[in-house]
Every structure is written in structure tokens, then in C-alpha cells.
């Protein structure tokens, strides 16, 4: 059982799934599966310079909004499957939360899943850039 960190309860099963992987290749396989089952929620024609996440080696784009009920919505896409998988898990993590909760969220779940230690430093930074962009957008939406 992975030590419980600061992440939403609905991520527990995913954290458990990843932390139970035998090695990093198995973890990557899981990320590929998540990418396949959660393809880009942002149509490719909407990938613009403005919504690009900079600092990722591959192309990644995000758009954040709030529903009428005040729930955070992350739509995103990436050309690399590993990044798309990370995007899918981040979406699962933050969608439905209040923007304030998203802004305050830490990437502990990625550590617990073993994702950040599996990634090369530039990939890990790419993931962090994406996560930080989401939090930044949440901060802007919280003000609105």
C-alpha cells in the first residue's frame, strides 16, 4: 500500500495501479493505455501557440475552464503518448474540483505513482511544466 499523500481520493486507485508496476517499462505501458483510453480532449485544430505548454520536448496543449457549477475542466492533448497519458491522469485528478483546490494541489500523486522517478529529468520537468500551467490557469479562473 502506497503511503497516502496530498491528492484527491478519487486518484487512489490509479496511484495504486501505477505504484504496483514491476518496472518503468510496465509503467510506460500503463501510460500508453491511459493515452489510448483518454485521447486528446482538445481537438488538434485548437492547438495554438497561446495554449501550448512550453518546456515539454513534445507538443502539449491545455485549455482550462469552469463549468456553470463552478467545477474545473481541463482539456488537453499531446502528440506523444507518454505525455498524453500524463495529461489524462492530470485531467482525472483535477476535473470536477474547485479551481482553488486545483491551484493548491501538489504533484505528490506523480511521485507516489513512480512517474517522476521513471522520467528523465527533462521529461519530469515537462510534466511539472504542464502541471504548473494547469495550476496557474486554475488561479486565474479562481479570481474570475
Amino acid at each position, binding site marked *: 500500500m502506497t503511503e497516502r499523500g496530498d491528492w484527491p481520493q478519487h486518484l487512489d486507485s490509479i496511484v495504486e495501479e501505477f505504484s504496483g508496476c514491476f518496472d518503468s517499462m510496465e509503467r510506460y505501458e500503463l501510460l500508453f493505455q491511459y493515452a489510448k483510453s483518454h485521447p486528446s480532449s482538445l481537438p488538434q485544430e485548437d492547438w495554438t501557440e497561446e495554449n501550448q505548454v512550453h518546456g515539454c520536448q*513534445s507538443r502539449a496543449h491545455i485549455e482550462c475552464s469552469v463549468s456553470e457549477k463552478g467545477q474545473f475542466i481541463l482539456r488537453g492533448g499531446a502528440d506523444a503518448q507518454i505525455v498524453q497519458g500524463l495529461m489524462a491522469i492530470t485531467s482525472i485528478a483535477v476535473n470536477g474540483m474547485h479551481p482553488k483546490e486545483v491551484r493548491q494541489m501538489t504533484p505528490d500523486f506523480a511521485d507516489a505513482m513512480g512517474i517522476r522517478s521513471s522520467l528523465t529529468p527533462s521529461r519530469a520537468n515537462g510534466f511539472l511544466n504542464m502541471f504548473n500551467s494547469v495550476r496557474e490557469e486554475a488561479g486565474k479562473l479562481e479570481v474570475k
Partner: protein
Amino acid sequence: MCVIEAMSRYYTEYNSNAHRANHTLADEATTALEGARGSISRFFGTSPKQMIYTSGATEAINLVAYGWARANLSDGDVVVLTEMEHHADIVPWQELSKEKGIEVRYVPIDLQYFTLDMDAFEVAVQGASLVCVVHTSNVLGIRNPIEEIVELSHSAGARVLVDCAQGAPHEMINFDLSNIDFAAISAHKMGGPTGIGCLLVRLDAMVQMRPFLTGGSMIKKVSTEGSTFQEGHAMFETGTPRIAEAIGWGAAVDWLDQFEMTEIHSHVNSLAALAAELMGNIPGITVFGDPQRNDSSGAVSFLHDSIQSQDLALLLDEGGFAVRTGHHCAQPLMDAMGVPSTNRASFWVYNTSEEVSSFAKHLSEVVSRFS
């Protein structure tokens, strides 16, 4: 190892600045720096007088742009590039074009063979003042017909700059015999340290150059009224030299001297050909160019049709295989090839056929597991 030892000896036994002071350490540092220049220039078949230390091929090309072309070209003069060039041999010319109004022409590649379109070259070179061409593509490993390009360019009255960064580790480049006017070289691709390289320049071209970096070392006399400069290569080596790096590079070429470059080329070419053959049997893999050609040189660019290049690089890294991924600082070539990026496996003298087989095996496993 000999490179590391030579650099370490400098730092531990005679660490001092070169070309200044008259103490023993400075004398030893100067002797080692100039000794390395002797070894490196001899390796490239030329005199130390025709060699200017730079930080690498990029700075060497910028030195031609801002040292020679800025002083000798003007509005309407033509510089010929190719679609195969590294960004280091494109961006300086685009910038100079804005400043001086020079015209930049691009020679396309033949997409069937990924070679230069020499018919187009013959047209482009007419009226040109300078031709800039990559000796060997860092993306495709393809060697360009430099001898023919030099002959056609000189017949048209143009000087020739050859980016030898990728070619120098794979082939004996004899600068004096080649008739090339400017050759840009990086040490790190031929067993030397990073951050050092050189520009080889014919003396008749060097006297037409003006320094684009000024300051210490390159002057004869400075007064409040103005300055006079050193002559020859010293005019273009401003500030404290990269002494340890130069000494390391000298050690690298001394080490390379034990081999015939033709043997290295043959070994590397056979590894690239083996890699291309094994990779060609893996479903979904496309190899660009033809690494089985004799004039190929160890770089094998490839893509998988469903595994994105960054993903593939990461999965190969898991098996201990470092491949370069991205546009390889050659976006115009990527555009011509119709792809945003490729993966590239590179081989050199230290690689073995067993390693190539092991690489192909891991690639095959990755493809069957992730595609």
C-alpha cells in the same frame, strides 16, 4: 581517457593563462596550446597559420559570416545554402541578409535519394559570392559531393565554406588539398571535449577578414585614440583561450592518428548498414536515406509509424540506448522530408556490431510491446 588525462594534467600541473606573462607556467600553457594547434592543423593537412580556434563549428561559421562576409559582401551579393544545412549554417546568413541585403539561395534535396539536387546547385551558384554546404548531413549521414561543389563554386567565382562538423570524425579532410576556402570543425564529434573547434581559413581569405570579437589578446596596441590588431589567426582569438579544451582536442587527434581514417569510415559505415538492415525488418520502422551507401557516415535517422519519436527515444533509453530525437537543428531539412522530427542512432569507432544487434533487438521489443 587520454583526452581527460591531458586536460587534467593542464589543470593540476601547469594551469596558467597562455600568450601572456613570462613565468614558467604561462610558458608551458602557451607551448601546450600551440602544440595542440600544430597537432590539429597537421591532422587536417594544413598549417597552424590557417587555423583559428573557436568554440565549435557554430562560432566558426559565424566568424565567416561576421568576419569575412560582412566585410566583403554587400547589397545584392548572393550566398548559396542547401536545405541540408544545420541551423548553424542558416541563421547567421539570414541575420546577415537583414543587415547587408545579401540574397540567400537554397539548393533543394532530391527526395528520392535524400541527396543534393546538383542540377539545381549548378543554377544557384551562378553569380554567387559564397557557397555554404554541409560536408556530411548530421541528420542523414549522407556525404555531399564536396569536390564537385568546390570546383563548380570556384569556376563561378564563389568562395566555399564547408561545415565539416559531421564529416571530420569519419573521413580524412585534407584542407590544403581540398581547395576549400573555409572549413568549420567541432572537436566534440571527434573524441575531443565540448566547447572547442576551429575555422580553417586560406590565408588569402584570412587577410580579407575583420575581427567580430574584439578585446584582449587580439590587439597589438591600445590607446585612447584607437587600437591596432595582431595579424593572422591571433586577430580572431579574443580573450583567454580555451586552453584545457584545446589541449584535450590535441590529445584526441593524436589518439586518432593511430587509425587510418578510411578504416574508421569503413567500420562506421558497416555498423550503419547493419543497423539499417536490421531496423528495416522491424514493422513500422522507416529509415531515411540509405546508410548502406559507401558515402554514408554512421548516422541512421528513423521513425516508427505509430510510436511518436520522443516516446520511442525514452523507451530506447530504458534499454540503455541513447538516440538523438527532434529536428536535429535542421528544420528546413525536416520540412523537405515532410516530418517534424526523427530519431537518430549514431555510430563511431568505439561501437561494435554486437551493440548494433542489441540495439535492433531492443527496438524490436519496444515496437512489439508499444505499437
